[in-house]
């Protein structure tokens, strides 16, 4: 276990989210903003679809030779004067990071946005050991004030509105004039920048994530829009890069291809405002940079996905397009998923990382509409991978017994065509007769889930096969 999960209570979480009017309003922004922007960016680039193929191939190639690229990357980082630490699980990663922070005598640690840091729950660990972690991405800063998890992998505070943020700032920024005007979003931004500027200058260690680790050069790359990542990694004496094993990419040329699909898929930008490359600690000729450069590479269950049905999930470059296009995510938001990664990518990844016994709802809570797969920049077949989880659950009897027995019962009849025709003829005849006058049922036994929200249309009565036999006898092959 890494951080606390409420994934087992997915249904309850979802029901609460559906009844939250403020959240529902915030979610409608996800729906409109991201989708149109991505589409426009994709339409403007004639080779976008070809780039998606190429991005998929680059990641597949890397995963196939991941051991080699990890070693190559490690030796390059060492050659540039940095240190590489491999962490098998969250606990090891936390301890390594705490050790580096202690060695640096750190009291304050600034952080760029990193989902891996959420995954290992580093903030709580640092706090528990007397070190103050400060999130510097605006969205992450806001949810840190609220003691919440991100609800989206690239827009962590997308579930909130400006009024809520204003309340949080007034609650926490007590040193500022209580009568100040915070009615405009830009005023919130300005205030956060001023507060964070002091933290940047005070920080002893800066922790960032990585979008890519380049084996060819030992470089780590982050893409950001706020510039906070740069200040996090340049100002403190020690920079820690925290990344998972699948962030490896062979060459800078490969990165340039992946960057072309990443921002377009995420925010519809051609490139994010900042794409920052960092290679080792500050060299004598550098104007600035950290004296100590550490990379913590986390496995936490990922290497066990290699060579399995779920290996394709390791291609993910964390753009968020799948959740931006997901009707289920639009309906319930990210927190309902109950752990770090929401939406379709979370529905596949979470069971791999915390166990399908805990996260079993996630791959089931999908209509398999396929919109996620249709926009994934690295063409991960997300519905197919969710289906593989359902297969595991079915094998292990982890599904509700009612679902299992309904599927089995249906299969029993469907495998016996004569019985099927006999039974359906009677059942449909009865339902059709009873429902004939109104044409629908407002309530049906065994179908409460359906009739809670919609009527059940009555069947016409006679089955197709019965009528076909009756009308076309002698004509069928």
């Amino acid at each position, binding site marked *: 276990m890494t951080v606390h999960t409420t994934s087992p209570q997915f249904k309850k979480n979802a029901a609460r989210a559906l009844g939250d009017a403020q959240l529902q309003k915030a979610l409608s922004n996800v729906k409109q903003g991201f989708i149109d922007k991505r589409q426009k960016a994709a339409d403007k680039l004639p080779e976008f679809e070809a780039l998606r193929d190429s991005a998929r191939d680059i990641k597949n190639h890397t995963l196939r030779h991941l051991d080699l690229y990890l070693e190559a990357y490690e030796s390059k980082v060492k050659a540039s004067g940095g240190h590489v630490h491999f962490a098998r699980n969250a606990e090891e990663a936390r301890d390594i990071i705490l050790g580096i922070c202690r060695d640096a005598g750190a009291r304050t640690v600034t952080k760029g946005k990193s989902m891996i840091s959420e995954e290992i729950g580093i903030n709580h660990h640092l706090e528990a050991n007397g070190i103050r972690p400060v999130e510097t991405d605006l969205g992450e800063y806001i949810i840190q004030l609220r003691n919440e998890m991100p609800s989206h992998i690239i827009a962590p505070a997308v579930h909130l509105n400006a009024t809520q943020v204003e309340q949080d700032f007034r609650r926490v920024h007590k040193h500022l004039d209580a009568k100040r005007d915070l009615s405009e979003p830009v005023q919130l931004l300005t205030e956060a920048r001023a507060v964070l500027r002091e933290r940047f200058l005070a920080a002893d260690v800066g922790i960032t994530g990585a979008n890519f680790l380049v084996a060819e050069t030992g470089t780590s790359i982050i893409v950001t829009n706020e510039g906070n990542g740069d200040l996090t990694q340049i100002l403190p004496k020690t920079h820690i890069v925290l990344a998972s094993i699948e962030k490896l990419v062979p060459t800078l040329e490969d990165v340039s291809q992946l960057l072309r699909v990443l921002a377009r898929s995420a925010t519809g930008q051609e490139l994010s405002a900042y794409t920052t490359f960092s290679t080792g600690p500050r060299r004598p000729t550098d104007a600035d940079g950290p004296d100590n450069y550490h990379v913590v590479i986390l496995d936490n269950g990922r290497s066990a996905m290699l060579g399995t049905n779920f290996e394709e999930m390791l291609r993910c470059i964390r753009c968020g397009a799948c959740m931006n296009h997901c009707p289920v995510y639009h309906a319930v938001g990210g927190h309902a998923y109950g752990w770090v990664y929401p939406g379709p990518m979370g529905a596949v990844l979470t069971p791999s990382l915390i166990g399908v016994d805990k996260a079993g709802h996630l791959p089931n809570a999908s209509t398999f*509409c396929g919109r996620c797969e249709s926009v994934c920049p690295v063409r991960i077949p997300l519905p197919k991978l969710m289906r593989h989880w359902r297969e595991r659950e079915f094998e292990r009897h982890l599904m509700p017994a009612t679902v299992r027995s309904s599927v089995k019962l249906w299969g029993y009849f469907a495998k016996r065509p004569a019985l099927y025709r006999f039974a359906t003829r009677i059942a449909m005849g009865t339902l059709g007769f009873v429902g004939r006058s109104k044409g629908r049922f407002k309530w049906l036994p065994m179908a409460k889930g359906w009739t809670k*929200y919609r009527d059940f249309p009555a069947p*016409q009565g006679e089955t197709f096969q019965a009528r076909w036999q009756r009308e076309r006898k002698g004509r069928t092959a």
Partner: protein
Amino acid sequence: MSVLASPGDERRTKPRIGLFVTCLVDLMRPSVGFAAVKLLEDAGCAVHAPVQTCCGQPGFNSGDRGTARDLAERTIAAFEEFDYVVAPSGSCAGMIRAHYPELFDDDPNWLPRANALAAKTYELTSFLVDVMGVTRVDAAFSGTVTYHDSCSGLRELGVRTQPRSLLASMEGVTLVELNESDVCCGFGGTFAVKYSDISGAIVNAKAKHVTETGAPVLLAGDLGCLMNMAGKLSRDGRTIEVRHVAEVLAGMTDEPAIGAAKDPRSA
């Protein structure tokens, strides 16, 4: 051609179609199946409906690969003799076309048969337009309609322009595009029952878009989605007529719309 012509004679003159009627159409709305028969025969096909049950999709999507394979084997055996397999459903056609090969990817005996069936399986409107080259249908229907793109047909089979072009060929029909027509209606098979709260919220949004078009008729190519949307619209007290697109294209709209009463006064 004689009604009693042998299959051998028939093959020389007309493509032989195995109509995969789908279990929902078989059980709930056989008139869609007969509309499909009419459209295929009008397009010059010889239509057959061998004994059939289910393509296996409910098992497949519930993780019961064993049941899915059993049913897929039966479907392959029942339909492989035909020139084409056509279904009035993007979902079931998608199951055969996109997923049967995956279902048998570790079985050298069945895989070639699954691949062969997949290659000749089509959703109804795309078969009419893309294979049979149908450019117009002559059917008595007039009015304004809107159209929902069912997910599997749209994203697994590329069904989008075909039903629209056939509707556009009908003189009396005006198509008003549905906002977010490519977004799921929330049906998702067993999802609608297992996660009914979420499904209810998704179909609520869909019903709102449908109502906003002002069209009195909603069409789509998959009965599951249609029953979901019709059930929601009728629960909300809307009088929008919901039909499978094949019914309109075939001019077979005598049957009450989905979820509508035989006699409107008793609704």
